[in-house]
C-alpha cells in the first residue's frame, strides 16, 4: 500500500476518525481548562458524534473499501454505525445529569464512550482479522473501564473486574481461533479465507468454533451468558444502557460478517449450533428474568432473551438470506431505542448517589411523574413486543423470517418465550401505575428529558411507520449480499 492509498483510506474513514479526534480533543481540553464542571466537553462530544453521523451517511451513497481491503465501508457497516452513533449520542445525553448525580469524572467518561464507539465502527466494517481484533479490543476495554467507572462503588468495580477477566478469557479464545484460521489458510482476510476454506481441515473447524464462541460471549448468549446480569447490574446505569445496545449490535455485526463472509462453507454446521444457542438463550433469559426484584437485573436477563430472538433471524438466514439478515439488523436498530429508553428512564429516576433499581423504586411513578411513567410504559410494551410499538414490528420480522425459512419449532419456542416475557415487563408497569409511592423521585431535568422524549417518540413513530428504517435495513443487507455474490 503506497502513501497515496494510505491517504485515500484515511480520508475514507472520516466517521471513525471524527470520533477518535473528538475523544482526543475532549481529553486535551480537559487537561487545559481548570475547574470541575466542564459543560463544553458535553457539547463537543455530541458535536463529534453528529459529524460522524453525517459523514457516515455518505456511505449509503458510495460503497468503498479502505486500507487494501481491510475495511469494507459498505451500507451494511453504515447501518450498524447509525445504531452505534445514535446509541452513543443518546447515552451521552442521558448521562449528563447522571454523571453529576453520581459525581463521576465527566471528561474521561465522554472520551471513553467515543473511543468505544469508534471501536464498534471499526468492528462493523472490518474484513480482516487484525483490524477486527483491535476494534474488538478497543470497544471491549473501553467498556470494561466504563463498567467499573464508578470506583467508589464496590459493585461497579466488581462489575469492571469481572467483565475484564471474562472478556479477556473470550479475547484469548478469539485470538487462538484466529491463529488456527490463519495457520490453515495463510491469510487473515475474510474473502481469501472463504476461498481457501476446506471443510476437511480440522484447523478450520476448530478455528471457526473458537471464533464463534468468542462472539457468542459478546452477544451474551447461552452458554456464555453468565457475565451479562452481573455486569449489567454493577455497571453505572447509563453505561449499562449503552453497553446493552452498542456492544450487542457490534457483536452481531461482526458475527454476521465473519460467519457469512468468511465461514459460509460451514453454514449448516454453525446454523445448527446457533439454533440450539438461540433456544436456550431465549428460554434461560426469560425464565431468570421472571423472578427478579431489581429492574436493572431483570433488563439484563431480558437482554439475554432478546439476543436469543435476534439469533432466530441469524438462523433464519440459512434459508432466507435477505429477510433473515435484514430482520436481525432491524431488530438491533429497534432494540437500541427501546432498551436504551428503558435504561434511560431508570437513569433519569436515579437519585443522588442512589440508582433507581428495584421495583419498589418506581412504584407510584404514575402519580408523581406521569409522563415518565408513560415513557416507561411504552418502552416496556415495546420490549414485550406489543403493537404498534417498534418492538412488535421487530419481533414480527424476525419470526416471519423464521417461518419463511421453515424453522417452525424455533419460531414457536420464540413466540412462547415472548408471551412469557410479557409477564415481567408488565409487572414493572403494575408497580409503576398501581402501587403506592415508596421513594422520592428526582426533579425535572431538561436534557435527560429531551433524550427520553426522542426515544419515546422513536419507539412509537418507528413502530407505526416502520418502512424507512426497514428499507434501510433491506438496502444494507442488499449491499452485503451483493458483495458475497460478487466473489
Amino acid at each position, binding site marked *: 500500500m503506497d502513501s497515496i492509498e494510505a491517504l485515500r483510506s484515511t480520508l475514507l474513514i472520516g466517521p471513525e476518525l471524527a470520533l477518535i479526534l473528538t475523544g482526543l480533543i475532549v481529553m486535551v481540553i480537559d487537561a487545559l481548562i481548570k475547574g470541575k464542571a466542564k459543560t463544553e466537553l458535553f457539547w463537543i462530544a455530541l458535536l463529534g458524534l453528529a459529524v460522524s453521523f453525517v459523514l457516515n451517511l455518505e456511505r449509503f451513497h458510495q460503497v468503498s473499501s479502505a486500507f487494501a481491503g481491510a475495511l469494507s465501508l459498505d451500507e451494511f457497516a453504515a447501518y450498524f454505525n447509525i445504531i452505534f452513533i445514535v446509541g452513543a449520542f443518546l447515552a451521552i445525553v442521558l448521562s449528563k445529569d447522571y454523571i453529576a448525580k453520581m459525581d463521576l469524572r465527566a471528561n474521561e467518561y465522554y472520551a471513553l464512550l467515543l473511543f468505544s464507539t469508534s471501536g464498534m465502527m471499526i468492528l462493523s466494517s472490518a474484513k480482516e482479522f487484525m*483490524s477486527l481484533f483491535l476494534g474488538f479490543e*478497543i470497544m471491549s476495554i*473501553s467498556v470494561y*473501564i466504563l463498567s467499573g467507572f464508578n470506583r467508589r462503588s464496590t459493585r461497579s468495580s466488581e462489575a*469492571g473486574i469481572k467483565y475484564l477477566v471474562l472478556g479477556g478469557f473470550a479475547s484469548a479464545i478469539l485470538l487462538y481461533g484466529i491463529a488456527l484460521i490463519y495457520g490453515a489458510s495463510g491469510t487473515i482476510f475474510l474473502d481469501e479465507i472463504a476461498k481457501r476454506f*476446506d471443510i476437511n481441515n480440522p484447523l478450520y473447524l476448530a478455528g471457526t468454533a473458537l471464533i464463534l464462541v468468542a462472539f457468542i460471549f459478546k452477544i451474551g448468549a447461552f452458554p456464555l451468558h453468565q457475565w451479562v446480569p452481573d455486569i449489567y447490574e454493577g455497571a453505572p446505569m447509563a453505561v449499562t444502557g449503552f453497553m446493552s445496545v452498542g456492544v450487542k449490535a457490534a457483536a452481531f455485526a461482526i458475527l454476521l460478517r465473519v460467519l457469512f463472509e468468511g465461514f459460509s462453507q460451514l453454514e449448516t454446521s454453525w446454523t445448527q449450533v446457533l439454533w440450539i444457542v438461540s433456544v436456550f438463550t431465549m428460554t434461560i433469559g426469560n425464565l431468570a428474568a421472571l423472578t427478579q426484584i431489581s429492574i436493572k437485573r431483570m433488563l439484563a436477563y431480558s437482554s439475554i432473551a432478546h439476543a436469543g430472538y435476534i439469533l432466530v433471524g441469524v438462523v433464519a438466514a440459512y434459508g432466507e438470506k435477505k429477510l433473515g439478515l435484514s430482520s436481525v439488523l432491524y431488530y438491533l436498530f429497534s432494540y437500541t431505542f427501546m432498551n436504551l429508553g428503558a435504561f434511560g428512564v431508570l437513569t433519569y429516576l436515579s437519585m443522588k448517589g442512589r440508582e433507581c433499581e428495584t421495583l419498589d423504586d418506581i412504584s407510584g411513578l404514575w402519580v408523581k411523574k406521569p409522563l415518565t411513567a408513560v415513557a416507561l410504559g411504552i418502552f416496556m410494551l415495546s420490549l414485550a413486543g406489543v403493537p404498534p410499538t417498534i418492538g412488535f414490528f421487530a419481533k414480527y420480522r424476525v419470526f416471519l423470517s423464521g417461518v419463511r425459512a421453515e424453522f417452525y419449532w424455533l419460531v414457536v419456542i420464540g413466540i412462547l418465550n415472548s408471551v412469557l416475557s410479557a409477564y415481567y415487563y408488565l409487572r414493572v408497569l403494575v408497580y409503576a401505575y398501581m402501587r403506592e409511592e415508596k421513594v422520592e423521585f428526582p426533579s425535572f431535568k431538561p436534557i435527560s428529558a429531551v433524550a427520553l422524549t426522542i426515544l419515546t417518540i422513536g419507539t412509537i413513530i418507528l413502530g407505526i411507520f416502520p418502512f424507512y428504517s426497514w428499507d434501510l435495513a433491506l438496502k444494507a443487507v442488499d449491499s452485503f449480499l451483493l458483495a458475497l455474490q460478487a466473489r
Partner: protein
Amino acid sequence: METIIFYVFAATSVIGSLVLVSHKNPVASALSLVLTLFSTAVLFILLLAHFIALIQVLVYAGAIMVLFLFTVMFLNLRDESLRFDAVKVPVKLGILSLLLLISGYFIFIGFKKIPPLNTMVISHPEPFGTVEGVGEVLFSDYLLPFELTSVLIVVAILGVVVIAKRRFD
C-alpha cells in the same frame, strides 16, 4: 540441535506455566511467568522470528512483568492476604485432566489431517523476521491496525487514570 533446543525450552515453558498456576505466592508466579515468556522467546528465535522474540523479552517479560510485580509491591500484600484456600486438589486435577483430554482429542485425532505443512522451515530469505521485514509489512499492509493500537493504548491510559488514581476525589 533445533530439536533439543525445542524440547528443552518447551519443557521449561510448560514447567513455568504449571508453577504459575499452582504456586501460592504471586511473586513466584510472576517470576515463573517470566520464565515461560522467556522460553517462548527462545522458541520464537528458533522459528526465525527474531524481532518478535526481542519484543517478547522487552515488552512482555520486561514491561508487563514489572507492572505485575509493581502492583504486588505497591499494594504491600502480606502473606496472609495472599493465601486463600484454593480449590481442592481432586477437583483441580479433574478440571486439568478434562481440559487436557479435550485438547488431546484435537491433538491426536483432529490434527492428524492437517494438510502438508508438516515440517518447520529452517531458513527463510533474509528480511523474514527481522526488524526490516516486519517493519515493511507493518507500515504498508497493516497500517490501520498499527494506528488502531494507538487508540487502544490511549484507552488503556485513560482507564488506568480513571480507575486507579490514588485519592477518591
